[in-house]
């Protein structure tokens, strides 16, 4: 706040661009972990966020799964919320007015059981004031295709992307599932399908069992694993995807601190999303913004953009250079 000398502003430039969308800083809140933002209004300054991504919205309201829906695991948690949400129409009338008045970019996470549903939700969101982007959750099962998730088949992933893209009047971010053999193939498919950016990762599929009852802990049997436990997997997938696509990549998975966020940026992420950490510290996303700003100041970065993809690989030292005359074991 103020100037060191004419033209040198000490406020670090934290802006990043997700396609045509400029964010004040690279920190967003991950879908399903930040409600519809209002829940956090007394706990942090919502205006500090790069963007808010709201709970996944479907065409019709969904009641969600019976309890228990969550269970803690080692450095993580499983959830099977069952995509409980108010449906796109009530979202628009009940939730969007508050969100629009925040004057920060609001990205609407959407999900469907068929291409037609994805299209229809997008169409209804078109023209709604305050909607700055759409994030497409493609981890949902395609009911028409025997329940295979849209996100595990490249052709289906591309098809959802272009279906949404056709109806959308805002940038489209496609959110990838980590539960695939080769995420690069899916990433390229959604890029070809017209995605403006890619976010990853959604949760890993996991399970917990209660030995006492001999039952799965979750009523839904399986659930999505999130939190610090999955960060190494997320970092690797972001790194892989950022190398093969030319659209911006948004990193998600176990981010709790500015250090975590900056590691994702080094791996190639243009921005990040904070998920489970919001539950542990409702101020987590604002704390990450503060931490990134402090880092930028300390490192005298003219723009935080200079960090994106800045990972330095170790000098190649092929195994063959280390002759194995006397292996230690």
């Amino acid at each position: 706040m103020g100037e060191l000398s004419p033209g040198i502003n000490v406020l670090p430039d934290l802006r990043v661009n997700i396609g045509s969308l400029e964010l004040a800083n690279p920190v967003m809140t991950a879908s399903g972990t930040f409600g519809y933002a209002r829940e956090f209004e007394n706990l942090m300054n919502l205006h500090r966020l790069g963007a808010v991504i709201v709970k996944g919205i479907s065409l019709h309201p969904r009641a969600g799964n019976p309890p228990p829906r969550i269970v803690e695991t080692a450095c993580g948690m499983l959830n099977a919320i069952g995509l409980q949400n108010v449906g796109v129409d009530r979202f628009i009338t009940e939730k969007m007015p508050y969100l629009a008045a925040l004057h920060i970019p609001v990205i609407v996470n959407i999900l469907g059981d068929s291409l037609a549903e994805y299209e229809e939700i997008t169409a209804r969101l078109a023209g709604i004031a305050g909607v700055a982007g759409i994030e497409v959750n493609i981890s949902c099962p395609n009911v028409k295709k025997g329940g295979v998730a849209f996100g595990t088949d490249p052709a289906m992933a591309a098809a959802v992307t272009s279906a949404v893209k056709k109806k959308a009047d805002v940038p489209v971010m496609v959110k990838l599932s980590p539960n695939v053999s080769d995420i690069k193939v899916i990433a390229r498919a959604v890029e070809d399908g017209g995605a403006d950016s890619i976010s990853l990762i959604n949760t890993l599929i996991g399970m917990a069992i209660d030995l006492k009852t001999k039952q799965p802990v979750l009523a839904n049997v399986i659930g999505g694993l999130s939190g610090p436990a999955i960060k190494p997997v997320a970092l690797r997938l972001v790194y892989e995807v950022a190398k093969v696509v030319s659209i911006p990549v948004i990193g998600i998975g176990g981010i709790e601190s500015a250090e975590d966020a900056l590691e994702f940026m080094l791996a190639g992420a243009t921005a990040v999303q904070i998920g489970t950490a919001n539950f542990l510290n409702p101020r987590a996303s604002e704390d990450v913004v503060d931490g990134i700003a402090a880092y930028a100041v300390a490192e005298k970065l003219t723009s935080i953009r200079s960090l994106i993809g800045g990972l330095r690989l170790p000098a190649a030292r092929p195994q063959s250079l280390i002759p194995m005359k006397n292996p230690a074991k």
Partner: protein
Amino acid sequence: MSQYQEKATVTRVEQFSEKNYRLTLDCPRIAGCAQPGQFVMLRVGPGKDPLLRRPFSIHQTRADGRLQLYFKVVGRGTDILAQKRPGETLSVFGPLGRGYRLDATSPSVIVGGGLGIAPLLFLVKENCRLKNDCSKDLLVLGAREKIELEPLLADFQAFGLTIHTATDDGSLGHRGFIIELMQSLPLPAGCTVYCCGPEAMMAVVSSLCRSRAIPCQVSVESVMACGMGACLGCSRPAANGGYTHVCLNGPVYDAEELLWES
């Protein structure tokens, strides 16, 4: 509705029985605005394991900013908590949820079983503060054995309501279940029941109240990740369909709002 994340200092740790503890925290901002029946979410340690905050009812607050919890060691989080020493700090988040709605014009019957006693001290205090006279109000407390009730009795007795106790083994008061005791007592006319205890106990208490047309408020539990409406993890089937979220719409409900296993 104010909520705070407060770095609270442990000022006292009391061990009442093998597994039951009372923790006193210096936590002025949360203590200053809490209502009986509300809860806090505690981060038991600095690491990532255990990861999630743990929910605890507010046992008592004091004007000097102290906040008390009464808890039982059931797992890793509560085990760590029991080992805290005065001077250590903890992150406390609260006050959370919807507490008891006290009706100052109706005699109160306050019913607690086991660890369900936790929020009732705060409730009794507030109840007696609201009314000029709480001598018509009843407090019915149950537990497995004497040792689980006795250390808290003096605190409750200070307020002058009539206290009845039941223990499974008869070591204190009525021998048997709290519901038997309730059935045997003449409940004051026009009373309201405020209840907290094990699920099965609350189911029979709410069914008793329904059959006698007595308004009944219960405080229920659920697994929780966020404690403030963000995760939708703490769902519980609601009487009129769909789910209610314990951290926002509860933990205190009119018994009629909930579906009870029959």
